[in-house]
């Protein structure tokens, strides 16, 4: 029970701080709204037949943008006050840090999807299917966002102390999350077209999630400890230069 308990404590700690300054939620939420309005203005005239081709792209492109924005900031609190090293030297499972950060990222993404999905339903008639099948839509959104958060959190940790983190994160993150995003795109299109194989797509997406979470958890410790070590080393080098 150590891992889930510690992961929950760390996530709760992040959420407590987030609720005090709304740094992540306000930024991500406002950005989602802007993207949604821009999509609405740009694609409002699309015919209903071609809408199912465009809506999945709008949904997951917005998730990718918001996800990158969130992931560049998800370790900010640890970076700002160097608390990452406090966690690394405390009796804390490193995987618990991964699970907590991925969970908070997922919550932010899901919060944005709470704006995105109703917005798309409101603006595009073809997206009505999402309102008609709320459970399948919810499953799709949760599974798609989980895969993104699972991959993204590992690399956000790896770049947590890099000065060019925003650029590097985008450059590394997009290619690595592409398979997860594409799978989500395909499943979304199947949902909009009421494809009978949608449950199979969702099951495949769930399997991908399990794979990515396990892989992320496995890689995380070496990425995180390597980051802390390089931060220690670069701190030393800076000290020497001074």
């Amino acid at each position, binding site marked *: *029970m*150590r891992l889930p*308990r*510690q992961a929950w*404590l*760390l996530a709760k*700690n992040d959420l*407590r*701080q987030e609720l*005090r*300054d709304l740094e992540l939620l306000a930024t991500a939420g406002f950005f989602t709204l802007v993207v949604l309005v821009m999509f609405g203005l740009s694609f409002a005239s699309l015919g209903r037949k071609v809408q199912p081709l465009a809506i999945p792209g709008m949904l997951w492109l917005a998730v990718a943008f918001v996800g990158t924005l969130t992931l560049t900031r998800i370790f900010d*609190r640890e970076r*700002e*006050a*160097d*608390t990452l*090293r*406090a966690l*690394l*030297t*405390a*009796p*804390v*499972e490193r995987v618990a840090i991964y699970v907590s950060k991925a969970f908070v990222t997922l919550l932010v993404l899901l919060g944005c999807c709470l704006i995105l999905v109703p917005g798309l339903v409101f603006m595009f008639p073809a997206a009505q299917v999402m309102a008609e099948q709320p459970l399948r839509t919810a499953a799709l959104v949760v599974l798609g966002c989980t895969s993104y958060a699972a991959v993204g959190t590992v690399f956000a940790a790896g770049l947590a102390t890099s000065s060019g983190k925003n650029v590097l994160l985008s450059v590394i993150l997009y290619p690595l999350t592409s398979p997860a995003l594409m799978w989500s795109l395909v499943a979304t299109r199947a949902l909009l077209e009421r494809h009978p194989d949608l449950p199979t797509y969702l099951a495949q997406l769930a399997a991908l999630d399990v794979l990515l979470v396990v892989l992320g958890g496995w890689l995380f410790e070496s990425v995180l*400890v390597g980051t*802390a*070590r390089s931060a*220690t*080393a670069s*701190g*030393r*080098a800076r*000290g*020497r230069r001074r």
Partner: protein
Amino acid sequence: MSEAVTPLELDGIGKRFGRLSVLRGVDLRVEAGEVVGLIGANGSGKTTLLNIAVGLLAPTEGERRLGGRRAPQVELADRMRIAFVTHTTQLYPRLTARENLRLFAELRAAAGDAAALPDPLLERLGLAHAADRMVGTFSRGMMQRLALARALQGRPQLLLLDEPFTALDRPGRERLAEVLVEERAAGLAVLLSSHDYDAVVAVTDRVVLLEGGRLGGEARRGEGPEAAGYRDRVAALGLLRPSAGVDGRAEEAARA
């Protein structure tokens, strides 16, 4: 009668960053109930040595032993017995002092280790009045004391302190010195790096000099007639100079 286990042993520790050799053949032991001061010029490798001791860095050569056991990796069980306080304090600024302590106490409890309650520790470090204030509003010295409170709440066997007296005013330094003396009496092993002459003399049993990545000398607090010369022996190491107006009060208080 069981033999006391040495909390920290570093044997022949070397560390290179690329082609830069930072530590070379450092041998250091810190016994239970002993406070060892690590002094040296900037860039002499003090922080690197502390980072190796706590497991944030792996040595390039040599062996690290924690609690008498070889520790090529510092595992979770080892981290239960070690506490590390650095000059960056590593506290969450958007949490209160009590919340900061409670978080780490709960994480420790989840790992199966009981931690001291936050309030008595805050009281002991003189922070009870600020327990519910956001740490971001604290002065540097208050953060330093809070970081020490967090370190002590796990009742560690080994405490590593990197420049713990930085930013502390005189009462703060004296309080920290008192706490260290009390913890030493309770059997805590402490390794601290510091540039503060008075503090080093007041709280340490032994001072080792790190020079160019090697151990360059040692001054040990003696007993009997030897005891009086400790200040001079530390000063003779050459890197720490007695500060102006030293009157020995801190040392006397500590020894008392």
